[in-house]
């Protein structure tokens, strides 16, 4: 405890805490009173995955690439009416089941990346906690509802050569 000639650090330290107190009182705190005030996450935030069902061809790529094995897809083939009158009926895949188990999901985003048909999107929505862990299994209706919350993709910083993607509708 050598007291130096300059102001001892202990006294300067008191100044720091006092200054912070005054700042908090006059300029407000850094925290947000959560249920009353909500911070807006950035558009890229990986909150929850939304499914645009029309684009999904049940190709199983996401389910196969998922590191946690938390995507369950079932589909069947059916004959869709031909595009032009008189043409052959087309074989199409219909999606019967698309579940994501958020209690297993590790939010890595690989499924969104590998989707070749732009059927999966990230949304920054984060308020979907449940009292029962089984309720964290979101089915395709629930995942479809998240589509409304998908934000527009952001513009890129200068010097970028990346192309801006579009959210369907």
């Amino acid at each position: 405890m050598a007291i130096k000639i300059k102001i001892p650090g202990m006294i300067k330290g008191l100044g720091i805490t006092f200054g912070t107190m005054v700042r908090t009182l006059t300029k407000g705190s850094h925290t947000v009173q959560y249920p009353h005030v909500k911070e807006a996450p950035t558009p890229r935030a990986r909150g929850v995955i939304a499914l645009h069902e029309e684009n999904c061809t049940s190709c199983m790529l996401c389910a196969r690439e998922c590191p946690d094995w938390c995507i369950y897809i079932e589909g069947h083939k059916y004959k869709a009416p031909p595009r032009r009158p008189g043409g052959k009926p087309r074989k199409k895949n219909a999606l019967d089941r698309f579940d994501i188990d958020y209690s297993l999901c590790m939010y890595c985003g690989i499924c969104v990346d590998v989707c070749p048909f732009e059927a999966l999107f990230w949304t920054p929505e984060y308020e979907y906690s449940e009292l029962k862990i089984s309720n964290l299994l979101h089915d395709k209706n629930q995942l479809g509802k998240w589509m409304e919350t998908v934000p527009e993709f952001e513009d890129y910083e200068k010097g970028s050569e990346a192309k801006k993607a579009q959210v369907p509708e």
Partner: protein
Amino acid sequence: MTEEETAAPEADAARDALVATLTEALGDNLVASEVKAGVDLWVRVTSQAWVETAQVLRNQCGMKYFNFLSVIDWLPSPFGRDMDAQVDQPDPVEPGEMTWGITGGQTRFQMLARLHDPVNHVGINIKADLDDDQPTIDSWITVYPGANWHEREAAEMFGVHFTGHPNLTKLYLPGAFEGNPMRKDFPLLARRVKPWPGLVDVEPLPGEDDDETEAS
């Protein structure tokens, strides 16, 4: 990686000198060596010369920094990626032929250790073949005290015995755990108790072959 290219000639000289020193000190015990210009250096020694190699590198080559020590199990996994694993199909398939990496190998287990010279910034990877049935090797603790925990980890994960280690108890695993989890023939249960969701495919139309995949 432009930095590496410009620094390459000097680093190569350093790495070649290292190999030369080792050859001189170890003689026949240095089985193989490989220098990747400006990138890295591998040597393979016999397991008898394991401690001696460390001593030479530490005392003569300035390799004062102990980086890590581990084991490679070269047996191809009998389970693959476990993607086709089913709950009711736990039997492993016959493992294929072993292929070894850089500097080759003869046995299933191979020691892998890395040392570093913190002054000249050259690293070296050292390998040594281990006996298949009773993998045993001398401990590095006398040379690098930091090898203590690494050897305990290797011992519990691969079942390698380190002669001269004062406290070769389990480091991570609970005391009653049986088996050596990092061996390739040790099944990863998490992947075997649940079928892979990607295994199912789209149900074909009734009465049709499913040769056409994507139709849209």
